[in-house]
């Protein structure tokens, strides 16, 4: 019997992470979104003022512990979330509750990360699993981009979302690199089979902000779908493939948008790192304004220091570059109706901007 390892939710990308964990000789415990039950557990256990993603991760691990999962993997974020004590805080909270689940980080102490020392995976299968995982991440990047593009134009509402779910399920069930590659190559054909209305000219909106909120649909209350079904083509700026390229310099077919390049773009407005992905958010907003996006939506958990601190900066960017930015902040009390009202009113503004600018030449840049 293999020991189990709970992995944090990273939206659809959890599928790829699960494949990697599998190759490490542990059985993954995962889900592509935090369910209601886990959310309730996390909210009850965490300090009230802590941010929503923290509560979600905590709830997820408590749920895993209840199910008898022995280990969990958690990474500290790249920026300075909770001053790099994100994992430590989770660990301490779980310990205080008397939970037995063991939390591993990816940090090195000595020669290799403790998680590798514990599971001690043989090298060749591990490398193979990582390779398949990376390949799957690329496939999921493709799924994400195809979904965003098709959903805004689909004739039968909901069809794209169903196909996306089906693709992810199939992807989680294939285990060789060759199959994954073939699967990825086949994706555009499958999405093209959905009936789309070519006459529609959807609004283009960039989604920036905190990672968990961008990726976990429970936390962002299905924001991507809500926008998509209202005829908005979104570009979610957290694509894990691109992210790995950013932080480890491993290019995965994305030449643009490395952390360094983004820092240069953001420089006139924000000269230093404030934590999380906030500097990237500023840079993406500037890039989107140049590329002629209709607007940006900035999501952040209530009380998230890095994301809240760039709000005034984004407001300045918005004024200077004439790109509207909608700030949405989420916590467990966020009412779905209030969010829908804000989003709808925002889209009304954008459509009326479109109508007014009809005479002007439209910029249609790609990012």
């Amino acid at each position, binding site marked *: 019997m293999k020991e189990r390892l709970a992995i944090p939710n990273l939206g659809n990308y959890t599928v790829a992470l699960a494949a990697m964990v599998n190759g490490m000789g542990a059985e993954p415990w995962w889900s592509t*979104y935090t369910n209601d039950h886990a959310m309730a557990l996390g909210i009850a256990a965490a300090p009230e003022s802590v941010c929503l993603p923290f509560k979600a991760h905590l709830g997820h691990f408590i749920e895993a512990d209840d199910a008898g999962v022995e280990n969990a993997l958690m990474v500290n974020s790249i920026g300075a979330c909770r001053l790099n004590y994100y994992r430590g805080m989770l660990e301490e909270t779980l310990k205080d509750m008397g939970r037995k689940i063991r939390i591993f980080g990816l940090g090195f102490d000595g020669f290799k990360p403790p998680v590798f020392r514990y599971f001690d995976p043989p090298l060749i299968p591990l490398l193979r699993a990582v390779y398949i995982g990376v390949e799957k991440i690329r496939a999921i990047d493709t799924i994400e981009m195809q979904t965003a593009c098709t959903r805004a134009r689909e004739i039968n*509402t*909901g069809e794209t*979302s*169903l196909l996306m*779910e089906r693709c992810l399920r199939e992807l989680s069930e294939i285990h060789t690199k060759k199959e994954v590659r073939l699967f990825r190559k086949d994706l555009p054909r499958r999405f093209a089979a959905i009936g789309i209305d070519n006459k529609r000219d959807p609004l283009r909106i960039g989604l920036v902000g905190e990672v968990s909120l961008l990726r976990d649909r429970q936390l962002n209350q*299905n924001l991507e*779908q*809500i926008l998509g*079904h209202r005829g908005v083509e979104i570009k979610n700026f957290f694509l894990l493939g691109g992210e790995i390229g950013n932080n480890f310099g491993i290019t995965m077919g994305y030449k643009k948008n490395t952390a360094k390049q983004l820092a240069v773009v953001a420089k006139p407005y924000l000269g230093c790192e404030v934590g999380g992905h906030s500097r990237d958010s500023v840079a993406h907003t500037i890039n989107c304004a140049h590329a002629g996006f209709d607007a940006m939506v900035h999501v952040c958990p209530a009380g998230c220091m890095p994301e809240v601190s760039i709000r005034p900066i984004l407001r300045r960017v918005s004024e200077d570059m004439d790109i*509207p930015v909608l700030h949405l*902040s989420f*916590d467990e*009390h*966020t*009412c779905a*109706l*209030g969010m*829908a*009202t*804000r989003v*709808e*009113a*925002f889209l*009304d*503004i954008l459509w*009326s*901007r479109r109508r*007014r600018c009809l005479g002007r030449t439209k910029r249609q840049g790609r990012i």
Partner: protein
Amino acid sequence: MRRGFLGIDVGSISTNVVFLDKDRNILFASYVRVSGNPIDSVKACMKELARLMQDKEMEIGALCTTGSGRELIGAMMGADVVKNEISAHARAAIELHPDVCTIIEIGGQDSKVTIVENGTVVDFAMNLVCAAGTGSFLDSQARRLDISIEELSRRSIRSTHPTAIAGRCTVFAESDMINKQQMGHTQEDILMGLCHALARNFIGSVARGKPLRAPVLLQGGVSANLGIVRAFENALGCEVIVPKHHMVMGAYGAALLAMEANVAKSRFRGAAIWTHHIHTRGVVCEDCPNNCEIIEIIDTDEVVGRTGGRCGKR
């Protein structure tokens, strides 16, 4: 049969209905308190409206619902347009005052500010979880003092030396008001102090640095409160206009939007709808992992609409 256009605004505290003829004249306007059941309050309004429509030999050309209950009532009535209340209020304000720059709308649970430039909305903001400074707080204070909300309005403007009240949070505001009352301040001064606190809180936490330029319109249920109007004039340093139909602006805007939607044949389910027995039932949809809680609207054993789904399926 002449065509008329119906706007229904189902808010947290009140349900407003406005019926327009094709020349944009208001033939019928009603403001009723919801008291917990939006379906019944809409039915009560429809009962009156049905009589009027019969007398004037008119039919519904298009219907638009707005407000927090827009999805539910939209599904129940067969709405042609379902619009958010920010756009509906702005539409009505621009109709009555085409030169408006700032719209302050304070309702039962929400307070919003909308910035307008050249007759189009360019920015808006809405209060977050905190309900300080909205109608329900004024309601609860009126109840505590055992006076009607109208009397609260009259008393507050009689004040000569308004006292300072902490307005950041309703709970603290209430303790502060009780404190001032025990210290011996007159009720008028305390109530006017409260109005100033609410206006200050609105400008600080909802408008948050947005440019509030004149002409400023104040609408929504709270605009009937003279103390609040005076407090806003004081805080903004300019005249605050309370438009003609300030209590039913949302419904008026909705009716205008219905008219502009150019609907050939309305999906409206008939003026006799107030006689139907309508109730709702909650079910969980298990077609996908979203597991949405769907509300089915049942009109005498027949499901006429569903709300609450996140995938867009009906």
